């Protein structure tokens, strides 16, 4: 093991040299950075699809593409963003880098599996891309049967791609569960682990328990396309709605795979930039576990109008509303943390506050949709689209951006230009609301989702929405420039530019190969501000 220079010259970035040392690296920090780059590339791809969708919807009729192309663009936008961006986004990138550091470990429990998970994601993405050779899938990211079982090679590729990428998620979750159990530094009891770790731990449980169900679902979908096994095919007595049950048994918990780590990031940001001990540590920690537990019993709310029994609908409606309780616990605790704090409106904090604002709208509209009576009206309209974008983009993506700006100095030892970062926030935040708020209105007026065209009455609000999407695009371009500029020209950050208390800030930036110069010994909670 190379010794550490007195001036912190030796770090994980220069520990070994060359592209090969990255591609074979077992260092959780390097694997985190590789995930960072991969996820950002996928995000760019998914984002371009999104802009194409919004551009097509600028006016009625065919604007820039045919209806067939539109269905494919929409499918790939959803599939790329869900499976390749938001699900690996926080756990595999920020989590990989910071979970071991926050608990004072030298690495995750199984570094080889960690590297393998990255290759699984790439391989899965590659196999899914093969579907383009067969004309592309046009089923939407949910692959609903019976439309998706017409012996379509494109769907088979997508299904197998999702299957392989699922292993990436399973391996990450498995690693995090064991790392959190076994590799905490001396004195780092479960009641002292940072809330980001609690969030990742709860997420990991969902990843481990739910992803295998998706795996068998997409295997059956592929088998349905290859052999016509008939599980989901009415012609053989199969049941297309069974596919929906299987799919949502994974995909609803998957929503919490996407949002729980974001809650964790926000907890870190709020306490750091309010310079105040987090309010209700225990409540926030256990509410993550509560959400993970409830998440397995709410999938039926996607199927209120799919012919499931009314009784099941009522039960799922009630259980879904239950999710609002632990979620609100988090939100109220964050607000209580802000109360009488010394709030520093640096860019990560702006994203955290933006998150709280947007996620609340996303969460509350979720309650509208959980109510059977209103859902019958809103189902499959733009109201649903707006709702889950407020959660996924307004929630998760805001948290990712806040997390990137927050931890950038630690990851690369350099500071981003905070003024530019704040400009990117303004564009993203304003653009986001301009894009998606009109979609709530459109949805409540009855505009159906997924369609290539719409009635002339909806054109005005669609134009507003499209303009908003370009503003978001500008925001992310500014963010990208800010990050690249920070990488190339950023000022040295020092070990702890934000004055944060968690362990990752108590070592040099960028961290040395084994994270800490000496193994930390923990004697207090994670957020001892005042």
């Amino acid at each position: 093991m190379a010794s550490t220079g007195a001036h912190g010259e030796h770090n994980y970035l220069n520990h070994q040299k060359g592209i090969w040392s990255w591609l074979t690296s077992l260092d959780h920090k390097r694997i985190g950075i590789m995930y960072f780059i991969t996820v950002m590339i996928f995000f760019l791809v998914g984002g371009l699809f999104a802009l194409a969708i919004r551009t097509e919807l600028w006016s009625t009729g065919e604007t820039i593409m045919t209806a067939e192309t539109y269905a494919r663009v929409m499918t790939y936008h959803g599939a790329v963003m869900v499976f390749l961006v938001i699900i690996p986004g926080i756990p595999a990138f920020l989590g990989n880098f910071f979970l071991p550091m926050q608990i004072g470990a030298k690495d995750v429990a199984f570094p080889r599996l960690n590297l393998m998970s990255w290759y699984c994601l790439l391989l899965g993405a590659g196999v899914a891309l093969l579907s383009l050779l067969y004309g592309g899938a046009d089923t939407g990211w949910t692959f609903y049967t019976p439309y998706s079982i017409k012996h379509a090679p494109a769907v088979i590729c997508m299904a197998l791609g999702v299957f392989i990428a699922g292993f990436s998620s399973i391996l990450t979750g498995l690693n995090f569960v064991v790392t959190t159990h076994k590799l905490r530094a001396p004195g780092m009891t479960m009641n002292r682990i940072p809330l980001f770790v609690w969030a990742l731990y709860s997420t990991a449980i969902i990843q481990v328990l739910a992803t295998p169900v998706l795996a068998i679902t997409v295997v059956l979908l592929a088998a349905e396309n290859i052999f016509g096994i008939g599980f989901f095919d009415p012609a053989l007595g199969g049941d297309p709605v069974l596919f929906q049950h299987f799919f949502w048994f994974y995909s609803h918990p998957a929503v919490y795979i996407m949002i729980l780590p974001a809650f964790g990031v926000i907890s870190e940001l709020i306490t750091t930039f309010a310079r105040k001990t987090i309010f209700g540590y225990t409540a926030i920690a256990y509410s993550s576990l509560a959400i993970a537990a409830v998440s397995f019993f709410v999938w039926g709310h996607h199927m209120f109008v799919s012919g499931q029994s009314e009784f099941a609908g009522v039960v799922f409606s009630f259980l879904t509303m239950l999710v609002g309780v632990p979620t609100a616990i988090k939100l109220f605790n964050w607000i209580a943390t802000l109360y009488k704090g010394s709030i520093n409106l640096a860019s990560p904090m702006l994203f955290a506050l933006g998150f709280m604002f947007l996620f609340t709208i996303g969460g509350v509209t979720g309650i509208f949709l959980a109510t059977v009576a209103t859902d019958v009206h809103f189902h499959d309209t733009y109201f649903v689209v707006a709702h889950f974008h407020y959660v996924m983009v307004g929630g998760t993506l805001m948290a990712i951006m806040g997390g990137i700006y927050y931890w950038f100095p630690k990851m690369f030892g350099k500071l981003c230009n905070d003024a530019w970062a704040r400009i990117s926030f303004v564009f993203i935040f304003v653009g986001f609301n301009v894009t998606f708020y009109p979609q709530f209105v459109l949805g409540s007026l009855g505009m159906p989702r997924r369609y290539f065209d719409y009635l002339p009455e909806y054109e005005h609000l669609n134009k507003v929405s499209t303009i908003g999407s370009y503003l978001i695009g500008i925001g992310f371009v500014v963010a990208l420039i800010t990050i690249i500029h920070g990488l190339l020209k950023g000022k040295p950050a020092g070990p702890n530019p934000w004055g944060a208390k968690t362990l990752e800030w108590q070592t040099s930036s960028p961290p040395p190969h084994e994270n800490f110069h000496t193994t930390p010994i923990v004697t207090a909670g994670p957020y001892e501000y005042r």
Partner: protein
Amino acid sequence: MSTANHGNTHSVRHHAHHYESAEHEHQSSKEGVWVFLCTEILMFGGLFVAYAIFHHLFPETFKIGSKFTDVRYGATNTVVLLFSSLTMALGIYYCQIKDQKKAVIALSITILCGFIFMGIKYLEYSHKIHLGLLPGDWYAGNADMIASEIGNLKLPENIGLYFSFYFMMTGIHGIHVLIGMGLIGWVLIRTMRGEFGPNYYTPVEGVGLFWHLVDLVWIYLFPLLYLVE
């Protein structure tokens, strides 16, 4: 600091740099295997749920379908797998006490049982394929041959669904048996090299846990496909 060094079990075993001790690494690896086994159970769980639903919807299809599975083959395979679980457990034990010769024998018998299991599966599959008893859309049952097999019973229209379940469940299980055989082969080679002993036997134990799970899944598949009417 070195990463895992498997060669020498006489001195204290080296452990990966991020663990405190070899025991710490062993316990963590074991927990990892258990978590992985949970994912396996959830995955097979999906199939079992589908089985339960369709058995409930089409009892007749499953009743007739199960007449095509031969209890003698299924029972033999059950005994073979149960026996292989015993030899697997013995293999772990002999690795722990570093009785290399017996460990090699026990693990070899385990692999042999895997081959017997897959051989019998091959006989069953080829017989079904010969009769045209294929899954779902591909079903092409030969009426004469079927009549000589189970007599002149009227087959339900969606009898192919039964064979979808038969081939999907036993197929995915069979893939697991093959993977398990490969893994046992891997630890067998390492046992022959003398890599395991009282201080280090994590891979054998992990593979053993996996093999027991594969066995356990079969314990459920056997009654569902061969015995239940």
